[in-house]
């Protein structure tokens, strides 16, 4: 054992930079946050140890509970829309007769490489109740458009739609790559059995994509629960907390409104982390079992 370690000393030298970097700038901050969540921390001062008081504080705070529910609703809503749309688009785009495939793929992917800040401003402008182009289009169809961002019943949905616009192309690319791994013989066999294309989709494509879709759900969860700039730019959590997320709650407790409640903020961060971890482990388990 010691001899292998000595023989591999150069390997350790190669692995060290990434391990040190990730330990310092990702693992240490979470440990630090974890510690802070048990203190009445204000700005950089740790303050007195308060046990679980911060956790009790946020769990009983109706505003935090709303943020918690909103984060989950936002994530679940986004997952449903995005995975349905991206699966349909990738199956269609993968049809052997389609031309200009790369062109479509590139177009669908553009939002993925567009900053969330720019995305948010574009959509804020398009959602505008007076000058917004979305309601103008709806008006042409004879529909009275809602106040997308200032109606508390609609605002969260409006953000989900923007999130779907931003991410669909990303998941479409992943699903398409896995579609191309499916043996064409399977479709030929199904076609000989007289299965229609719709039938083939549900009997062949979808079952074989289960592992891939599981992975997509996992990536969705990690990426959507962390959504911050979209909400921060478009609504700041408003109207009346209707779009407050755990991330914006964390930010506001620490840096907004001069409260500097770092302890509370840390506790909320840890709950977010726990949420991500639980969902990751569950979907990981499901993927492993299936695939």
């Amino acid at each position, binding site marked *: 054992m010691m001899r292998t370690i000595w023989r591999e000393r150069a390997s350790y030298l*190669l692995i060290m930079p990434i391990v040190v970097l990730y330990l310092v700038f*990702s693992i240490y901050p979470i440990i630090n946050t974890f510690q802070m969540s048990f203190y009445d921390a204000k700005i950089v001062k740790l303050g007195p140890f308060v046990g679980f008081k911060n956790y009790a504080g946020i769990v009983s705070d109706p505003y935090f509970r709303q943020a918690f529910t909103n984060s989950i609703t936002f994530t679940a809503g986004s997952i449903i829309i995005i995975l349905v749309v991206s699966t349909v688009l990738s199956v269609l785009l993968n049809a052997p007769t389609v031309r200009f495939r790369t062109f479509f793929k590139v177009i669908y992917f553009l939002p993925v490489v567009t900053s969330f*800040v720019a995305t948010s401003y574009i959509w804020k402008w398009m959602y505008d109740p007076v000058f917004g182009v979305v309601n*103008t289009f709806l008006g042409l169809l004879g529909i009275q458009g809602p106040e997308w961002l200032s109606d508390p019943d609609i605002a969260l949905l409006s953000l989900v739609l923007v999130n779907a616009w931003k991410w669909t192309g990303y998941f479409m690319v992943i699903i398409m790559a896995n579609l191309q791994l499916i043996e064409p013989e399977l479709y030929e066999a199904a076609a000989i059995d007289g299965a229609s294309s719709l039938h083939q989709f549900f009997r062949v494509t979808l079952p074989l994509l289960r592992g891939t879709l599981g992975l997509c759900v996992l990536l969705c969860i990690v990426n959507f629960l962390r959504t911050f700039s979209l909400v921060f730019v478009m609504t700041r959590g408003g109207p009346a907390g209707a779009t407050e997320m755990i991330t914006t709650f964390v930010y506001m407790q620490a840096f907004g409104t001069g409260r500097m409640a770092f302890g509370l903020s840390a506790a909320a961060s840890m709950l977010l982390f726990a949420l991500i971890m639980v969902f990751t482990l569950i979907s990981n388990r499901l993927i492993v079992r299936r695939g």
Partner: protein
Amino acid sequence: MNHKMKISRVPSQIALYTILIVSALVIAFPYYWMVITTLKPSDQVYTSDIQLIPKEISLESYRVALSDKQLPIGRFFVNSVIIAVGSTCITVVTATLAAYPLARRHVPGGKIAYFLIVATMMVPGEVVLIGIFMLVNSLKMGNTYQGMIMPLSVNAVIFLVVYNYVTELPKEMDEAALVDGANIWQILWEVIIPLSRPAIYSGALLSFLSAWQNFTIPYLVAQNNSMYPLAVGAILTESTLYITMQETLTVSTILTIPTLLVFILTQRFVFTGITTGAIKG
């Protein structure tokens, strides 16, 4: 038979292209609308009479935005480049160095290192906002480039892109070199890195694109105009007096164009990066 099939295909082909084209329009229209809004004379922006095709094109909003003293866009742009390029270099170099020993050699403890790297995917910057804020300040990196670059360099997806690629390389290549008596540095430098070039390009692109877009870390670390990147500069337009939505969109356009261009020119590498990173991710 063949002829009949072709005829029956026509309506479904029409339906197929209709869906694809309508989706493409939904995706592309917001870009068109953003750019068109910035190119209109300002008195034609704030009107409920919406012109899908502007009657008049004007570069006025760019002239105003670029000459605005409160909003040094050139500086923001340079900062974005420094931050994105800096973190790309660190991410790609650290990932490439570690990928070979972790993917190929029997290193005691290698599994732990791998797990640690991949586990950071569950701790994105948004989850540890204050942890990073405290760390950066205690390292005296507040309002510095390194304070933004280092946290942005943690990107396990890039590691996975290179790692998964190295795992798939034919074993004979590096084993032959090993038999010939090459040492680990020679194998890395002369065999692994040249063969992994596509993955390294993909990783570099993905890393650049994600660092350029990032808002949270720079917003947390940078404290004044001389350090803000474009993503943060764009949001400052809101808190600055007299700046209109048109100017905000002008900055957004300047923020958006570079990544779109980089992506369109290199789309092949970006797509392979996305898929190799997601295989085992």
